[in-house]
């Protein structure tokens, strides 16, 4: 059931989630997305271009972050608009634990056309990794 527009107020916080990201996840995402950029799986190349280590695809982090919204909606088709900047890379160490991205989201604006603006924050090791991450959803 999609939450009802009338029941949601500005400041409403969607359930937060943690998303662990391991090297294995990045390899799987390379294959599924077709983005085989070497910096997402090869430490030698990543460090040679000045990165601290292998980094997650920005699109992988973006895909995880919006799950906080689509899990809440139930029907992902209620999502009308979703955007972000990639402000800081998510560095994924070569161990079984990997990195963890923590995603919070809250309603920051209610509009006349039954849509709400959701502002999303995503962080890894207490540093923000996405900038201006926002979604617009239509509620019944």
């Amino acid at each position, binding site marked *: 059931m999609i939450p009802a527009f009338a029941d949601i107020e500005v400041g409403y916080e969607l359930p937060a989630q943690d998303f662990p990201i391991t090297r294995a996840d990045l390899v799987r995402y390379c294959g599924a997305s077709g*983005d085989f950029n070497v910096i997402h799986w090869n430490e030698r190349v990543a460090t040679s271009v000045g990165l601290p280590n292998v980094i997650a695809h920005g699109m992988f982090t973006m*895909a995880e972050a919006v799950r906080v919204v689509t899990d809440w909606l139930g029907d*992902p088709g209620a999502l009308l608009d979703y955007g972000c900047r990639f402000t800081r890379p998510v560095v994924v160490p070569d161990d079984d634990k990997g990195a963890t991205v923590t995603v919070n989201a809250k309603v920051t604006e209610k509009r006349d056309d039954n849509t709400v603006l959701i502002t999303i924050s995503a962080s890894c090791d207490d540093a923000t990794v996405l900038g201006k991450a926002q979604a617009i959803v239509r509620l019944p």
Partner: protein
Amino acid sequence: MALNQEFVGRSFPPSPVYQVGREKIREFATAIGDSNPVFHDPAAAVALGYSDIIAPPTFAIIVSLKAVTGVAHDPELGLDYSRVVHGDQRFVYTRPICAGDELVVTATIESARTVAGNDMLSARADVATTAGEHVVTTYSTIVARAAEEAGA
């Protein structure tokens, strides 16, 4: 290195048709760890009014980035693709991508600029069905980092 300004405003011929497969959607949803039944189970998708399983919101990048990176690799543009990172991304949806869709992408270069030595290319990709129904528009900025600012 300055980007070739002649590319700004240029639209490229529509891409070859991308046939959206049910298994490709499931593979992508699994790769991002998303078990929402509407991405996996046709019955769950039909219950929400869709004709088949739908794709997670960022699946559109598979369809659109192919068109954008094709442009970015054009040697006449002058972008050093070996230094490229993703700057920003936005999706504006008319409806979710659905298994069985036959999609065509039309890419347009919206801006090409250099900021603090970083070359930034912004492109729009309009994704529609072969019947002309708009599905999603994607807005992407890719950045070729200046060599001395590696690690930023």
